[in-house]
């Protein structure tokens, strides 16, 4: 317990780092994943911008990168991280890898949720003269907003989970804190302090997601 009190400032820093890492990764990955997911959806056969080739390429890319376990992915994309964010180690390299992994995961979530929008509703929009991009902005996204919020909440939890392996490339955050000061120094109290904070954080985000989705779905 004394050890934990000693480590409190480090714990607070770690909480801050987790917010920073997960926050930026979700922001970037969320946006890119939305675009990629829309791309997957609209180019499908029978969809509003049907295109077999683009659809094939997008599916190939997503299917190639999504199944790679994150702990391997993070090492594998190091050269790319150096190119894009200028470094292969530390929090920024971690954020890069997380954002990229989240992009692929989110793209599938977005595609799946857009598929729940009834084709007839899209046909109704087409019948009044709305073009593909108008339909995306004014029909598809608003109609699928409730499930999309739940999908993003799900990915947020997954990204927080993935961020725990940060130590591998010298990143910080709560997961790294638990491993470095709890597990490696044989101090379960410290490990559990980090675990509890992660649990509380995830519960709060899930509650917020559920509440928002319920408001949007009006039920």
């Amino acid at each position, binding site marked *: 317990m004394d050890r934990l009190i000693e480590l409190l400032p480090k714990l607070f820093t770690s909480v801050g780092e987790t917010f920073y890492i997960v926050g930026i990764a979700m922001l970037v990955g969320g946006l890119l994943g939305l675009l990629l997911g829309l791309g997957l959806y609209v180019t499908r056969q029978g969809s509003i911008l049907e295109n077999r080739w683009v659809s094939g390429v997008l599916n190939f890319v997503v299917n190639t990168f999504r199944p790679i376990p994150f702990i391997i992915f993070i090492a594998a994309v190091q050269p790319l991280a150096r190119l894009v964010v200028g470094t292969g180690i530390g929090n920024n390299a971690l954020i890069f890898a997380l954002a990229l992994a989240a992009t692929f995961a989110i793209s599938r979530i977005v595609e799946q949720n857009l598929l729940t929008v009834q084709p007839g*509703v899209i*046909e109704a929009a087409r019948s009044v003269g709305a073009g593909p991009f108008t339909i995306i902005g004014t029909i598809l996204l608003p109609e699928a907003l409730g499930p999309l919020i739940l999908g993003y909440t799900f990915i947020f939890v997954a990204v927080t989970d993935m961020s725990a392996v940060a130590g591998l490339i010298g990143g910080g955050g709560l997961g790294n804190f638990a491993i470095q000061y709890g597990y490696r120094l044989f101090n379960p109290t410290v490990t559990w302090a980090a675990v509890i904070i992660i649990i509380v954080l995830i519960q709060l985000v899930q509650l917020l997601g559920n509440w928002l989705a319920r408001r949007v779905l009006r039920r």
Partner: protein
Amino acid sequence: MPIIQITDVTKTFPPRSKGEAAAPALDGVSLDVQKGDVFGIIGYSGAGKSTLVRLINALEKPSSGSVVVDGVEVSTLPESRLKRVRLGIGMVFQQFNLFNARTVWGNIEYPLRVAGIPKSEHQARISELLHFVGLVDQAHAYPDQLSGGQKQRVGIARALATSPAILLADEATSALDPETTREVLALLKRVNEEFGTTIVVITHEMEVIRSIANKVAVMEKGRIVESGDVFDIFSAPQAEATKRFVSTIVTSVPDPDALSALRKRHPGRIVTFSFADGSTSQSSVFLTLGEAAVGFELVYGGINEVQARTFGHLTLALTGDGAAIDAALERIAAVATVTEVA
């Protein structure tokens, strides 16, 4: 010049699985709809009528043939120029297809936004439409709070928002109960009468045709097997498919079961006389039979009304001398359609 002119259109969808032959959804269809018509297209599911109606607002493109709407060939128009065409054509759907994330108001406003009509004009137009369809109180309700009939009235208001010259109704009443169906049909009729909107109605129910259409085309397996004035089709259907549809609501002609029951009771000749539009007085038929000393008994029949015009079928069991009956029938054939049914 017809407002909608479909000429020799075929439409073939790619086969669902490899090796399967591609069956044509439309096979040489031609159709003219005049301005102000309520044009009914009737057929069983899979007859191609939904595909046909989607050619008009170019939601589907034909494999060959031409579709001219208001003087514009729409089948070859690029997507970018279709917006203008579609603003002039409203569409109502079987499953309503309302935007669930928008209120009734938002649903009706959507076409106005797409059309780029200034926001200041929305209020007046939407409230006018809400009054027209009788949904003023539900303006701020969401679709999932409405009944089926209310949803379809929103669908109609949305389709009319940009004051289109043409309204397409794709099985608009098929998901509704009989009472609500009547209300929605009455509303469509008002649209036609008050705004002069040309309406194309797709249905598999003859009752829909009878209550609002003035022209009808019967479809079967991607072809139009018969078309014409609703009254003519109802009073004298020619094609087999047409006869089947007409028999669903004109029950004054005995079906084979009824006929064999009649046969048992009446061993003599059984003949059906068909009258259209009061052009023949029934009394002259009976008079002729009487003069020829032919005994007759009315065994089946009825008088129907379509578009405020009447037609009827009377089935009589005749008794008497064979030659006298033949002579009498010959005279009657000049004033009514005579069918020897058994």
